[in-house]
C-alpha cells in the first residue's frame, strides 16, 4: 500500500514537472496573460475606480466582490458543518 502511494505521488509529481515546462517565463510582459485587454484595463483603471493601490485587493473585493462573498460563505458553511459533525456529544 505504501509502495502504491509512493508510486502515485511520484507519477503525479513527474506529470506536474512535465506540464510546468510549458508555463510562460516568469514576469515576461509579452505573454498572452499580460497582453489581454482585461489585464490592461485593470492595470490602468483599478486605482481610480476602486481607490486602493493594490490591484489584487481591487479585484478581490471590488470587481469580483460577489465571488469573494461566496468564498467567505463557503468557509463559514464548512466550519459550521464540521462543528455539527464533530461536536455530537452526549448531553
Amino acid at each position, binding site marked *: 500500500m505504501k509502495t502504491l502511494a509512493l508510486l502515485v505521488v511520484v507519477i503525479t509529481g513527474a506529470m506536474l514537472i512535465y506540464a510546468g515546462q510549458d508555463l510562460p517565463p516568469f514576469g515576461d510582459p509579452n505573454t498572452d496573460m499580460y497582453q489581454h485587454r482585461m489585464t490592461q484595463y485593470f492595470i490602468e483603471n483599478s486605482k481610480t475606480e*476602486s481607490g486602493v493601490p493594490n490591484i489584487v485587493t*481591487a479585484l478581490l473585493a471590488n470587481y469580483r*466582490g460577489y465571488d469573494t462573498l461566496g468564498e*467567505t460563505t463557503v*468557509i463559514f458553511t464548512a466550519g459550521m458543518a*464540521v*462543528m455539527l459533525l464533530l461536536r455530537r*456529544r452526549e448531553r
Partner: protein
Amino acid sequence: MSRIQESVIIRTVVRIMVPFIELFALYVIMHGAGGPGGGFQGGVIFGAAIILYAMIYGIAEGKQKMSDALDRILASTGLTIYAGTGLLCLFFGGMFLQYGAVPLIPNDPATVSKYLIDLVEIGIGTTVAAIMISLFFDVSPPESEEGELPEELPDHEGVDG
C-alpha cells in the same frame, strides 16, 4: 499535562507573543488595501494566535479567551458585515457591492470604495478567524474541557530520555 505545556519558557514566550501575533493579524487585515495581505490571511493569523494559546495553556483556558458562543456569533457577524455592505449599496441605489454608490463622501466614489473595501476585509477576517478557532476546538479532545486531564501513568519505565 504534557511536558511541553509545563515548560516555563514556552508558557512565558507564548504569553508574550500572543498579543503581538494578534496585533500583526490586525495589521495584515487593515493593510490589505495598500499591499500584500487581506482578510483571509489576517484572519488565519489571528486564529493561529488563539490556537497557540489554547495548545499551551489547555483547551479550557483557551475557551475562556474565546468561548463557543462568542465564536459562533463572530463567525456569523463577519459574514453579515460583508453581505450588509452589499445591501447598503443596494439601499443607496447602486448595484450589489457597488461601493461607489454609497454617498459617504460626496462626489468621491473611489474613496468611499476604499473605506468599504476595508470594512469588507474586516468582515472576511472576522469570519475566517472564528472558523479557524472553531475548527481547532472541534478536533480537540473533549475530556480536556473539564480542565483536569487524566492522570499520567505512574511508572515511566519504558520511556528513556
